[in-house]
């Protein structure tokens, strides 16, 4: 095949237009691009007397042993105790359960066990 001498340079000039000299590369963000909301913790109450405390059992074995004792101690100190449990420890608490705790309790204690 006969080619004119200028052909290769024409091909490379087309490439130069399309592939500029390497500068810093630009990539697409692989993350969900969200920033977690930062919430201020509520002030710690001076006493639990008269407050409603939710005890959330995550449904791991023997979590109830720990929470029964906590309930005794809280009741002695004048707190009202409500008990809740997650359907399974492997999944986040259902929204309804979280809502129930938030509306009925002043404080919540979540228990891990095993």
């Amino acid at each position, binding site marked *: 095949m006969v080619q004119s001498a200028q052909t290769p340079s024409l091909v490379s000039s087309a490439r130069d237009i399309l592939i500029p000299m390497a500068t810093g590369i*630009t*990539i697409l963000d692989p993350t969900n691009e969200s920033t977690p909301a930062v919430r201020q913790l509520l002030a710690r109450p001076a006493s639990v007397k008269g407050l409603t405390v939710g005890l959330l059992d995550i449904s791991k074995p023997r979590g109830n042993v720990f929470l029964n004792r906590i309930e005794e101690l809280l009741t002695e100190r004048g707190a009202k105790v409500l008990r809740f449990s997650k359907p399974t420890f492997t999944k986040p608490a259902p929204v309804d359960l979280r809502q129930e705790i938030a509306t009925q309790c002043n404080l919540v204690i979540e228990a891990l066990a095993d």
Partner: protein
Amino acid sequence: MSSVAPDLPNGFVVIVKRECATCQMVEPILSHIASATNSLTVYTQDDPTFPSSVSPIHDEDLSVSWHYDIDTVPTLIKVVNGKEVERTFGWKATDWQRITGIADLGADLPAMRPGCGSMSVDPDIVDKLRAKFTDSPVIARTVEFSAAEDEFEAMYARGWTDGLPVIPPTRERVLRMLTGTTRHPQDVIAIAPPDLVELTVEKIAINAVMAGCLPEYMPWVIAALEAVCNDQFNMHGVLATTMPVGPVIICNGPGTRAIGMNSGINAFGQGNRANNTIGRAVQLTIRNVGGGRPGEVDRATHGNPGKISFCFAEDEEGSPFTSLATERGVPLGQNAITVFAGEGPRCVVDQLARTPEELTNSLVASLQTVHHPKLVIGFDAILTISPDHGRVYAEAGWDRERLIAEITERSLTHGSELVRGARDMAEGIPPHLKDATLPKFRPGGVLLTYAGGGAGLFSSIVAGWANGAIGSDPVTRIVGS
């Protein structure tokens, strides 16, 4: 969606490049068409003066070639009222004569000669053209690295990798990855745990690029993510558990062979791009989009190396059993993936068994050790039979159902041997089950598969995690397009 295509003039349009010998051969033909019809427009891809006899237009940015899908030069297109009505490519005298209506066109040339590749499909520049001309709704935030910054180090520094280097997800690479699926880039595939964010095809494509996938793996990656991001598989719990499990991906169907997956020698191991990057893309997506990172929501005590990628195909053609996908209701010939919350594989050696009964006894003895010899029902397992072990079952005529039934029967154990404290081991089943006789696995709890190299009297077990509604169930999904 593409950017607006340049209009083609009415009459005859030919796209050529000087570098192509066939284009040079048809140069006199172009003059003939021009003089006979007075309505010829020639676009040249490389030399703006070629062919000088017909005043060519230089398709310098390849816009015409790209928008009109020119794969081969020369291409002849007939345009009526601004619309293409017919085209041919390369040189085929009868086609050119019919389209132009010039009966003796090129009568002195050979009847046909193939054309050459269009510059617009040159592998070195096609991705740039796609990025330039495709008005794709890719909306991810862009991150620009400085020229002094090593992009590989920069991606490590941002916490985007699994500990191994990742491929920088440039717009060009992501658009090429998106060619592997018909799904719209903004389609929401799932809600990704643990951060419960909408997972789009675009974000999957970005992470698939980083993992090293080819575009044709995209439908498999999408199906696997659909399968893990739901309450049944419970990816949140699989991350959060202190146990060493991650998603194990089993692929079935003719597509596994089309994308070159390994179901043979070293099927669980390194060396095959599809096996290793499909699983990695799933895990990188969960990490980067879902926000599931070790030490944060991932609380595994030891983890396992398969949490980088654990993905393999079943050897359906060699198997004496119906495939796992068929067992799970997938129609024959369909591609499917099954995800299983599993740990690393362990080997079962039996080089002496020559009967299916002997071999099954060995398999059961090993299966009994899944997580603890005295814990039953609560954990599933993948059992992968090798060709050498599979032959024992094939020769005896044992099918899937028979083998599963035998495993169940031969694993039955009296509760007195399993209860807490029995055999001087505190661990065990609750005391109220002491009089029961129990199999090791719940119904459906053994996922029988067939894979591995042709030599080795070994099979393999992948133990699962807490099964059922309390933990995770295996999930099967059809692989789409």
